[in-house]
């Protein structure tokens, strides 16, 4: 999938949080074959270099986030700090409005996107499934938009399929990634079947009972879906169509 000036072979971006251990995280990265990993910034702990070194072992591109930011100023300054550490212009922009359902702020996300794009960032904004919100993000210059499937960490999957379809249809040239709400392999497959470019997930993998196995399953599911689309599935019919010939049915004239 196309992320501004780079093309990723894999359609899956993986979050780096909540894994039982760094080793399990690294196994998941390997099994899901991701090329891009999301990370955050937090106040320094005892060994700030430790996680940095784990990230280096992944050989993945880093997509820092602005998780936990509730206004434009916080998000912009967090993005600048991310660029200072990771030396990347990519930023997963999160400007949260509602602490209860972690919904993004429409106004804040649009304003922060505009500001960060002017500062040379390649912004990947976390959005809802609202078409007007998604369209505005494209109008201000975002080449990637990341609508939620459902609220973060809920694992509910894609709760408003028709809204997501409308976004895909209305923004054919924008890279669309479902960010948040994925819980099962079938949800990830559904994202691809809707014509979306990719999936960003974290909790579904990290909190599963066997994260490396789940990561592998997500990869296999997504790639089977891609291959099946290439193979040309049948079109949907309103009427039933018998599979077996109606000629020569026994006991009929």
């Amino acid at each position, binding site marked *: 999938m196309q992320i501004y000036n780079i093309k990723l072979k894999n359609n899956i971006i993986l*979050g*780096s*949080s*909540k*894994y039982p251990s760094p080793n399990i*995280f690294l196994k998941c990265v390997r099994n899901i074959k991701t090329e891009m990993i*999301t*990370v*955050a*910034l*937090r*106040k*320094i*702990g005892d060994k*700030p*270099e430790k*996680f*940095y070194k784990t*990230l280096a072992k992944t050989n993945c591109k880093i997509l*820092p*986030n602005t*998780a936990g930011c509730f206004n434009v*100023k*916080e998000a912009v*300054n967090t993005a*600048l*700090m*991310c660029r*200072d*550490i*990771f030396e990347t212009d990519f930023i997963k922009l999160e400007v949260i409005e509602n602490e209860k359902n972690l919904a993004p702020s429409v106004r804040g996300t649009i304003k922060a996107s505009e500001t960060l794009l002017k500062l040379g960032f390649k912004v990947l904004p976390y959005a809802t499934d609202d078409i007007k919100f998604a369209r505005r993000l494209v109008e201000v210059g975002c080449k990637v938009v990341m609508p939620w499937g459902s609220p*973060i960490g809920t694992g509910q999957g894609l709760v408003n399929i028709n809204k997501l379809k409308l976004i895909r249809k209305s923004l054919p040239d924008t890279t669309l990634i479902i960010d948040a709400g994925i819980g099962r392999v079938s949800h990830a497959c559904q994202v691809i079947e809707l014509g979306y470019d990719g999936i960003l997930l*974290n*909790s579904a993998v990290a909190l599963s009972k066997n994260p490396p196995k789940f990561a592998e399953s997500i990869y296999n599911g997504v790639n089977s879906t891609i291959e099946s689309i290439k193979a040309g599935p049948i079109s949907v019919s309103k009427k039933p169509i018998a599979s077996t010939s109606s000629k020569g049915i026994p006991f009929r004239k």
Partner: protein
Amino acid sequence: MKIILNGKSKKLNSDQNVIDLIGLLKIDSKFIAVAINGEFISKRNYTKIFLHDGDVVEVVSPHPGG
């Protein structure tokens, strides 16, 4: 003077710049980023920016995130 470092009060000698503070924390500046009073401070300005009494300083590092 006193600053607020990552939410906690910290005493510092006067005339300390950001690089002095990082030295006191014994951390490699490669792994961190800094904001003072809510404003990002670029690594190239660490020697130019001096801390003042009451400054609210955030020193952050990479952390797992989704």
